[in-house]
């Protein structure tokens, strides 16, 4: 896959799914995924697990956070499911500048 072409496509600011990108680039989603992973490893793209919630339990002032009060520290059980939002997918982003 032409990685430069792929980056130009992403940089146009138009969101697209990996399946759509595979169709556009005339390749397979697996090829797109491995290329995205590679680009992430070399620091060109940034990967965000959308389901991961990185609350460290320090928002003790949140009255809705049962997990952040007392000794029990962790994500706010009142705000997110126990396992985080598991089915929110993965996002890759590239800085336009």
């Amino acid at each position, binding site marked *: 896959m*032409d990685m*430069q072409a792929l*980056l130009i496509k*992403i*940089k*146009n*600011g*138009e*969101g*697209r*799914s*990996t*399946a*759509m990108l595979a169709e556009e680039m005339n390749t397979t*989603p*697996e*090829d797109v*995924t*491995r*290329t995205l*992973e*590679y*680009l992430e*490893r*070399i620091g*060109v793209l940034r990967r*965000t697990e*959308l389901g*991961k*919630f*990185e*609350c*460290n339990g320090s*928002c003790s*002032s*949140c*009255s*809705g*956070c*049962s997990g952040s009060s007392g000794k029990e520290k962790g994500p*706010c*059980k*009142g*705000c*997110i*499911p*126990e*396992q985080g*939002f*598991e*089915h*929110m*997918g993965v*996002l*890759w*982003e*590239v*800085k*336009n*500048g």
Partner: protein
Amino acid sequence: MTDGKKTIALLGQPNSGKSTLFNGLTGMKQHVGNWPGKTVEQKQGGFTHNGEDYVVMDLPGTYSLSANSDEEIVTRDYISSGKADVVCILADSSQLERSLFMLSDYAGINVPCFLILNLADVAADQGKTINADKIRSKLGIPVVLMSATDVKKYDNFFAALNEALSKKTTLDISSLEEKYRKLDGFDELKAEIPENLIPGCSSTWMAVKTIEGDKVVRAKIENKLTGDSLVRYNSHAARFDKGALLTGECKFSWIDELLSDSVNKVTQTVKTSKLDKALTNKTWGKVVVVLIVIGGLLLSFIPAVPIMLLGGIFTALAVPVREALTAANASPIVTGIICDVILQSLANIVKMLGFAFGINLVFGMFEESGLMARISYVFDNTMSKMGLQGKSIMPFLVSFGCTIGGASSSRVIDNWNQKVLTIALAWAVPCGAAWAIIPMLAANFFGGYAVLVIIAILLVMLLHIWITAKIFGRKLVKKEDRYGIIMELPPYHKPKWGAMLRFVLGRTKDMFFRVVKVIIPVCLLFWILSYSGGNIEGSLLYKIGVAIEPVTKVFGMNWQLFMAFLASSIGKEGAVGVLTALYSQSGTIYGAVNGTNAAVANSTQLLLSNISGPQALAFMFAITFNVPCVVALAATYQETHSAKWTAIITGYYTLGALIISFIVYHIGLLIM
């Protein structure tokens, strides 16, 4: 070689089955420590085969041999140190297109090696047929298809090991090198690097690492080159910008060619599903998503209705309790507090929880099924154009439950300006308390049309976010800070009902305790302030209310509603407490103004008889888009560390809520 023992280094990406093979070979003969000077775990073991002793070094699992991490540096240094007699490279047979990358990165290292295509059983389950002999003929090294979990079938592994050791088999990189040679400037660069300048590494490998911008390799080469050769090397190296893209393409292309006639797999034509096509359509995607959300809101009323009816029990209970207390000559104040404050508050709280439960259940289903990912995908595009990072989705999602959590979760956003913008926008997302109060009030005032009110609130939310992004974004996010995005949509899932119900019930329970803590004290405070005992002019609240009413009416709110609006800044639930107090039955302003303490059926009827439709509408919009609560304000300060921006956002939302209320009230007057 160690003490006459042959040393095998196991090299592979994480999850390629390296540790399984290591355990299979060494059994209990293992030693675990750290690599010198690093916090990277070093695992060494040994085994005997056919009377020969071997040492096995389990190298850290890495994706490549670049110098991006301690693990990669340790791995690379060990291989080039010459301590290993042979390197066993492992790849995951079920995803060779990805896992052979390590092999392609190893190409050019002269230490003898052989390839293990591990997880053969998984690949077979996927319907893949792998011809190891064909791969072997292309690579020139022993290749074994096996499953490291099956320790009884290691014969082929031992045969490959012996062959690699005895013949000192090295990887044939001619076809990969041909691809590198097509890169403009590769040959010239390679010509400046003598073979084995770094021990065990070919000039091709060093040239590739130079092109990739590997600082460690470059420093080693620059240390050893001198004079014109060094100048020419640096000059050729400088020609490559983003060289890792170029070499990456070569490596992947080489892997694809290697596998093209060696692996047969069941070809799955991946086509975007019809639903995904509709959701991701540039023109209609947003419309489809809005329709789905509306459908979800309608669905959420189904579980809410029975819980709302349950709330009615507390209202109904107020009549016999009042009669019983009166018959027992209880003080009117005690009767008022029990019937008007506690029971009315509980009735409202249970009704609110009904909607909170319904909405959380439906949107939990959306998330569990993978639909929520599609919904956020549709708006990612817009978010990206607003200058927000993909990570901003989380604060928004969490804000639907609690704005405090939303503000706290913006911590993951590394750019301060984008963090402030994200928090500013997350405030526009109605929180769980709003989602509990608004449907209840809307259902009370507008019956079946409540859904339309909620849809209108959602649309105003989107408009609010857009306008806020324009206003704040201009100041906070520059064009060069914006991002392009790709989303890997998860497959559709059948919801895990148990886990989902636990979350929804947990959130409803949290909300119950939270609203009880706010509503009852606020209701009690305003009930006391409004307690007139028949002399309304003596009530402090009445005096203030009458004084400010000419101004509050401009925004479509009588003074009672405006008090509730102010209380909603402390917490949205506070608004319900104030309304309950001010429109309760006995001994308060309402009772005095109406001249009786007549038993009016319930607080809903009281609200309906005292608040017009346009006023109710204006009030609902005002509290929805008001400051979420004081704790959210504190969380915003905590995350932004800026009193200035916290004050700006607070002022903006207070003013915005009043403007929205003004507009909605006048639209309401026109249509009702």
